[in-house]
């Protein structure tokens, strides 16, 4: 592909490591002249995908693989962990009204990723989880 920029990282499980990926995203986006609005949304997607992967990464292989492929038109975000996986279809859709009065206020990552991306795919089994997010940049 013309003007296809690719960044790959394998991230350790340490605090705020997702910001390294965000910095990479920013550099790629600036190079390709992507609008601030689209970059902002891409930042949120990247952040949510990585914090989930880090949180649920495997005890043996605690690292997380991240891959961005960006053109002027489109960003593909790929994040994979080596954790125990999950069944996305069993995750309950969060609702702010229900969250009020209950202890656990969390559970928004998947909803945000689904809402803010243009395409969204989760492949998960007992060897880990792969998430692919597509974001149109124009």
């Amino acid at each position: 592909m013309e003007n296809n920029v690719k960044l790959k990282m394998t991230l350790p499980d340490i605090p705020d490591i997702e910001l390294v990926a965000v910095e990479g995203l920013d550099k790629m986006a600036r190079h390709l002249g992507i609008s601030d609005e689209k970059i902002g949304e891409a930042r949120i997607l990247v952040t949510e995908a990585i914090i989930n992967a880090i949180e649920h990464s495997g005890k043996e292989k605690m690292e997380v693989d991240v891959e961005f492929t960006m053109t002027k038109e489109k960003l593909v975000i790929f994040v994979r962990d080596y954790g125990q996986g999950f069944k996305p279809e069993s995750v309950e859709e969060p609702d702010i009204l229900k969250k009020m009065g209950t202890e656990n206020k969390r559970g928004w990552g998947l909803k945000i990723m689904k809402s803010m991306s243009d395409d969204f795919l989760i492949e998960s089994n007992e060897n880990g989880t792969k998430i692919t997010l597509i974001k149109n940049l124009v």
Partner: protein
Amino acid sequence: MEAEFNLTSEINNDCLVLKTDGYVNNYGGEQISNEFNKHFKNGIKKVVISLAKSKVVNSIGISFMIEIIEQLNEVNGKLYFTDMDSSIEKTLTIMGLFSYAGKASTIDEAIKSLN
């Protein structure tokens, strides 16, 4: 290495004004929540959170705001968010926060609406 998150806090026209600087993650959310609770105990019911200096937030950090809204609801108080990057505003919208919290472009505007 700078700290990833800083919070400043002031009282303006009976409103608690919190300004974030940096990444609103788990730690950032907790800082906001602690600072809010300190003033909530003293009777503060109007709160403004300015996100002017935060370019990135995560859903864990923002989920702390739900608790603040919950506590304010009980005393007929209100929370306003201001100076949001468009992607952050979108995130809060997806989470449904603006069904309970207000938004404004600037702190002054928020304070006006709260008074």
